[in-house]
């Protein structure tokens, strides 16, 4: 936020300044309280929202995120009020809660104020410091301080994101055993049909017997393996091959059946 705040008219519109000038709703509330727009002793919620709404109307461009910040705070206070009015609660408790909600805001403001002052102090210190200039360093901005954990981890997660993008763009077939935890593309019907045709030629041409282990050894990747298995199952279902396993956990023999 680089915009300067507008100079304010001292009498009536003491908080009618550039909206960017506020660091958040508490900052605005502090100003409202200080300018006696609302009573400091108790901060009636309705009054706050009213003041705020009229403020919004007067400001031309209010970023939605800033308005949301204020509404979030208002909702929090409102919740306290609603709880206070909830019929399940005893009367006593309701009064207590109502007071709590308003006290809550005062506590919030009291805790916040010193930091608001500290921010003003920092602004002043920075202004003072900026009256001096350093010799520009010869090092470029590409150098990181040793111990800069933020940059270290940021670089890592950016790198990982880049790797993922690269991998999803290239062909998925990258070999069995390279498990990067990224699910591969599910084989489609065309792939299976094509494999079925290949296998049909294979079992028809070969004089010798084909086994599952022998077939698998030919496969280049996980995807190919899955496609082959699906093709074999489908061919078996259609009666184009017979699958036979002699013993438990033994190899599977594949034989082409002669289509009549």
């Amino acid at each position, binding site marked *: *936020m*680089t915009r*300067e*705040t507008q100079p*304010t008219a001292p009498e009536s519109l003491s908080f009618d*300044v*550039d909206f*960017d*000038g*506020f*660091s*958040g*709703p*508490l*900052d*605005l509330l502090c*100003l409202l309280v*200080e300018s006696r727009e609302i009573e400091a002793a108790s901060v009636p919620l309705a009054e706050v929202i009213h003041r705020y709404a009229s403020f919004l109307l007067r400001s031309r461009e209010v970023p939605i995120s800033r308005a949301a*910040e204020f509404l*979030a*705070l208002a909702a929090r206070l409102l919740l306290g009020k609603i709880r206070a009015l909830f019929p399940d609660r005893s009367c006593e408790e309701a009064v207590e809660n109502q007071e709590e909600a308003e006290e809550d805001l005062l506590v*919030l403001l009291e*805790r*916040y104020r*010193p*930091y*608001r*002052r*500290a*921010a*003003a*102090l*920092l*602004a*002043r*210190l*920075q202004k*003072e*410091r*900026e*009256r*001096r*200039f*350093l*010799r*520009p*360093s*010869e*090092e470029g901005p590409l150098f990181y*301080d040793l*111990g*800069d*954990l*933020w940059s270290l*981890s940021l670089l890592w997660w950016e790198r990982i994101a880049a790797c993922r993008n690269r991998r999803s763009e290239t062909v998925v077939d990258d070999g069995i055993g390279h498990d990067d935890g990224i699910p591969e593309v599910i084989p489609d019907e065309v792939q299976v049909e094509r494999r079925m045709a290949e296998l049909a030629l294979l079992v028809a041409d070969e004089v010798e017997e084909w086994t599952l282990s022998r077939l698998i050894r030919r496969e280049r990747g996980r995807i190919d393996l899955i496609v082959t298995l699906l093709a074999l199952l489908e061919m078996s279902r259609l009666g184009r091959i017979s699958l036979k396993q002699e013993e438990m956990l033994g190899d599977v023999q594949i034989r082409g059946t002669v289509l009549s």
Partner: protein
Amino acid sequence: MCRSGEPFFLEPSDAVVEALLFIAVDPVSTRELAEVAGLSVASAEKTLERLKRHYSGGHGLALLSVAGGWQMTTSPSVEEAVASFRETAQSQRVRLSKAALESLAVVAYDQPVTRSEIEEIRGVRCDRVLDTLLRYGLIRIAGRKKGTGNPLLYRTTSRFLEIFGLDAISSLPRLEDLEEVVGDDDGPGE
């Protein structure tokens, strides 16, 4: 101080310290200066005092004690001319929003502190502000807080001290004494 006509004698070691401050990228500690210049820490301190006095006599340069060390800067008296000179000067300025300054104030006073602790005090979300401060190198991640979720803890950096011209965090006035320092007259967007 030459200005006053009072004769001012520089010792040979003063020239060394002066040159070191000129080429140093970051603030240099008195001990480091002493070591390289072959002086005792006490003599280095005297040298720094002498140089500081020398430059305060109408010079365009000045010695600044910051972030636990010494730095050579342009003097505040020539601010305007220097600020208008090329972009080099402007690029040194860090623009911080009021929200960023406020979050920085919470980190400075309460460090190490978590994001939600900052938000608790400020009453708003601070993710983007913290991102800005981290990118400017004004705060850094300083481990994790033990407990639910083990959130990250943040601290100010020595760059923070440099930007605000502070020698150490301890040279900030206490939070409860701030009223006297700053007063209540400060409007927003200061």
